[in-house]
């Protein structure tokens, strides 16, 4: 089997598996911290998958045009060699947003710990009565 196709298939499969595992972690995690970690893993996996979608094998260049005033040939060369920049734009936006969400989530966990003295889901449910 061609190595590139193998790598691509393996990559997609691995990412899918990680995604399912992290979903399980979000739903069934015993501690809120574990839920937080699972959520960040899910987000990163989704981002990696998007990067994968835009990736190109073979001889590639970074998605930067070498000239300021590109001619049509330059653009044709660019399209045929460079990695697609749009998925990377999407991912960098999503990463920044995920950082904000993770920080806020961490704050909420800390606040829950202050109020209940624990982050275990079962104990919190018991304390609430």
């Amino acid at each position, binding site marked *: 089997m061609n190595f590139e196709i193998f790598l691509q298939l393996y990559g997609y499969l691995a990412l899918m598996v990680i995604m399912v595992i992290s979903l399980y972690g979000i739903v069934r995690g015993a501690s809120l911290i574990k839920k937080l970690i699972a959520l960040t893993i899910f987000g990163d996996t989704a981002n990696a998958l998007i990067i994968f979608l835009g990736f190109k094998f073979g001889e590639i260049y970074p998605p930067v045009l070498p000239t300021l005033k590109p001619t049509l040939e330059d653009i044709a060369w660019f399209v045929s060699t460079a990695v697609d920049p749009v998925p990377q734009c999407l991912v960098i*936006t999503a990463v920044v947003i995920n950082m904000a*969400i993770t920080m806020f*989530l961490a704050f909420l966990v800390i*606040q829950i710990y202050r*109020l209940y003295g624990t982050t275990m889901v079962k104990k919190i449910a018991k304390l609430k009565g």
Partner: protein
Amino acid sequence: MVIEVDLVTVLRPLIALITFSVVAPLLGYIEGKLKLKRLTGAFATLGLLIALLLSIDMPKALLTEGAVASLSGFGPPLGVEIRVDALSIFMVLLFLGLGLLVSLYSIKYMEHDTGLDRYYTMLLLLVAGMIGVAIAGDFFTLFVFWELMSVSSYSLVAFRKYRWEPIEAGFKYLVMSSLGSLMALLGMALLYGYAGTLNFHALSMIFSTSSVDPFYGYITLTLIFVGFGVTASIVPFHTWLPDAHPAAPSPISAMLSGLVIKAAIYAIARSAYTIFNPLIFNYGVLFTVFAVVTTTVANIMALLQRDVKRLLAFSSTVNIGFILFGLGVAAYGLRIGAIAASLMGFIGALMHLLSHAIGKGLLFLAAGSFITRAKTRNIYDLQGIGRAMPWTGASFSIGLLSLSGAPPLAGFVSKLLLLMSGYSVGDAFMNVVTSLMLVNSVFAAAYYLRLLQVCVIRPKGIRAETSKEVSALIVVPLVLLMIALVAIGCYPWPLIEVAQKAASILLPLP
């Protein structure tokens, strides 16, 4: 015909809102130094008012198929695009109008809370995010503004961070909703992987040819539907809502229930109808089935509630089901060739979106002022409180009657349109589904009227005896919303015309 406009002209309300939200913390600091109460609140209300005034020339785009603005030099499909059409205007004016009244209500209502500078910053950013969602012309812009909206609403739900309830509800909302956004992001990325563009218009061109792989289309449609459906609180993704709405401060409950879930329904409608042609992709059945499940489950849950805000929260899910039903009828009708029914379904969905946004906003605000006086959320402890607070009680009753579908109020018009559209498709499946919706509608009226009976009609209870009317600053937004409900109910034609324009642009009519 689509007209080209300058980017800055279209973005003026957004720029105003973001400027005001950046300056708001500064005002909060001054407020603290000078011991001036209500300064930040007045400032935020002014910001929303200015944004509303700046968007007043937007309806000009109604005369055309839409106004398009893009970054100079990078037109679509390469760059970002802002597209304002009839549907966007409908949503933007709703967001700004209700946002303004909520902000006005908050000035007095939130007076005793600390950290009001953060509150108003987030409120302005929330409205800005929703407007951005409504005017986005491609998925990238939509995603960015979607996250702006979501992040501000998470922090607003957990605003009273010293109590356990908002913190827990915020945690649940955050985890579920951010999972949903990631799903939608994956759906967008798959669309990009297939079509090579994120622009709505270009995508609709590519997906309207019948050579599209239907499997691929359905996968992306499912991901986007689930992703936005979490925020729209479609059953079975609704579990965050009955916790988050009661836990948030009342003005924020009104924003969440009135607007945020509507923005999500808008995102579903926009992505489904522009990209996936109902003639090729058969999602009308999916939407209607989800609508029936949503209304039925939420109705049963709402009947069991004793907490007034929780009951209203479940009723939001019920009404999302009604809106989704209208969208489903529109797609289904187009597919089997019942064009009139399909148009009516879409118009009904938009009108219900409007009447529910105003009605539920009003109910949450009124319930908030009951709660400040009676210090309880239990329905039976609020017995007869409407008699002690006549203005709030009157607007609360009008809101309840409108949601239960009593003529001549706004809710009657929209429910009538929805049910009529379902029956006029005229096939067996749709008749059954519409009858189920009719039963659900009566079912919903039952608990609205029970709420009305307990809170307004019964003689005053112990807590109502000691309650008196809230101050004028709180009553004014309530009365304005009440007038809006009556006015729309008596004279809905201009709005129906706008909705029809939106439908004719969005639906691929033959």
